């Protein structure tokens, strides 16, 4: 696949990445390397109460941990970030360590802003508003899908006004990401599968995005290979090695989409996730094959590359390869025992048009591989996925 002569892009990915079994033990060394000695550990209640991960990370940090803030929740709220910053300030924190999924890491990104700039987090809603590096932040993901440990965006919800606020800034990208497969040991199989499919969606949508570029393409394609080769076995509880590969895929796909963006599958997943409480990765997994079919008219060359990364070998046209790629994605979700249809996750059929209209107003729609301007087009995808 070639690139247009007017190709121009900025690729930015400053995060230091550490990978390895048990590497989380190096956290205190990494913190010192950042010139910090007073970390606020940001995590969620579930990890604190139901696993020993928070206790272990705290132990590895030793006297470099000034406190734990475990109030992060899915769709973390403005008030949660504001309170975390207040606690961090009171404790004299000079750095943040986040432990958890996307919500914990996003909460930490918000706290990092406030510890540096002061004020309330809502004051900083916007894109690229910050003019200096924020509070040092080490992110430790415990799921294998969001890639938030390397992205420049945090999503924080205004619970009072039922609105999601976006904070996008190169200055909030975590300084260090520690990828320790060992931390995924107790992640339930369904979550491994759903978050792994989220990573696959990030990779595929980055490659088919109108903002695609060669570096993100290269990363996205390898992330696809890693998901394909590892996701099924990673759902087996004992296979930490495979989970590690998925964690890497998530990270690599995170770098890819942070630079190239995501598209229609995410626009739909955001919509049905908010309306019906469907897990983000699962929602992506259900709609992605159908979005790929819809997009194939336009991005068949890109999807032919994706087919190759998915291990498809066939002497057929790129258009046919693109469709085979969509079939392979559907099959992969099936192999992971994930629900395949919107009806399986209780999306009401009579609300599909409403969902299509809302998805059309989602920011991700701008970066879909095939331009979408009519809710009827999205409805056709939703019906196919139903």
């Amino acid at each position, binding site marked *: 696949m070639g690139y247009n002569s007017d190709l121009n892009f900025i690729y930015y990915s400053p995060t230091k990445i550490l990978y390895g079994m048990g590497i989380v033990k190096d956290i205190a060394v990494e913190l010192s390397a950042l010139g910090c000695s007073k970390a606020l550990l940001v995590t969620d209640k579930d990890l604190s109460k139901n696993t020993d991960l928070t206790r272990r990370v705290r132990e590895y940090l030793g006297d470099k941990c000034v406190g734990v803030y475990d109030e992060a929740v899915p769709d973390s709220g403005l008030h949660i970030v504001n309170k975390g910053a207040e606690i961090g300030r009171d404790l004299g924190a000079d750095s943040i360590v986040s432990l958890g999924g996307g919500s914990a890491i996003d909460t930490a990104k918000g706290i990092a802003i406030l510890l540096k700039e002061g004020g309330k987090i809502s004051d900083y809603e*916007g894109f690229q508003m910050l003019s200096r590096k924020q509070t040092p932040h080490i992110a430790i993901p415990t799921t294998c899908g969001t890639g938030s440990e390397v992205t420049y965006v945090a999503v924080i919800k205004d619970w009072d006004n039922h609105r999601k606020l*976006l904070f996008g800034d*190169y200055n909030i990208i975590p300084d260090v990401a520690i990828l320790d497969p060992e931390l995924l040991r107790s992640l339930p199989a369904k979550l491994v599968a759903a978050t792994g499919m989220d990573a696959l969606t990030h990779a595929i949508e980055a490659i088919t995005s109108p903002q695609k570029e060669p570096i993100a393409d290269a990363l996205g394609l390898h992330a696809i290979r890693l998901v394909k080769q590892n996701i099924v076995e990673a759902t087996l509880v004992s296979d930490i090695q495979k989970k590690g590969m998925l964690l890497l895929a998530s990270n690599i796909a995170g770098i890819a989409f942070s630079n190239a963006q995501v598209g229609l599958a995410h626009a739909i997943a955001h919509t049905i996730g908010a309306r019906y409480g469907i897990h983000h990765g699962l929602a992506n997994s259900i709609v992605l094959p159908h979005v790929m079919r819809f997009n194939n008219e336009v991005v068949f060359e890109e999807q032919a590359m994706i087919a190759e990364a998915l291990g498809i070998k066939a002497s057929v046209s790129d258009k046919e390869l693109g469709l085979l790629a969509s079939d392979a994605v559907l099959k992969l979700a099936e192999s992971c025992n994930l629900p395949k249809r919107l009806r399986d996750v209780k999306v009401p059929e009579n609300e599909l048009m409403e969902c299509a209209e809302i998805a059309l107003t989602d920011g991700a729609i*701008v970066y879909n591989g095939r331009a979408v301007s009519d809710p009827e087009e999205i409805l056709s995808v939703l019906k196919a996925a139903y």
Partner: protein
Amino acid sequence: MPTPFPSEEWVAKYKDAINASADYKVAGKDWTYGVIALICKAKPPVLEKDIGIWLDLEKGVCRDARIVTPEEANKAPFCITGEYDRWKAVIKAELEPIKGMMQGKLKLKGNLPTIVRFVKAAQELVKATNSIDAKFLDE
């Protein structure tokens, strides 16, 4: 005769160009989210100080457009800030503003998803700048 950018004269012409755009009227008909302000950063000696442009947009119409101070511009619900050369690139259709925001070439204060919902309107606003014969002071 070309109109210097940025200037009161350019802003007045921009208001007229927006209101003359049938495509913007349609694309922006549901915009009820308030003023969009632009800040063009100083580039001495071409532009000695930061300049704000206040665009009061409502339902596909530009009700008011004027030069304001950067402080005033910053009070708008949406404020987009960029270097002089970035705005020049936008006006010359060399930089797509939403991509520019994502890449840090332009800075947005405000809710990006709201702007993105009106991406077509944003494109028409940019197109409207192209209809003005602009004179860039560094050329």
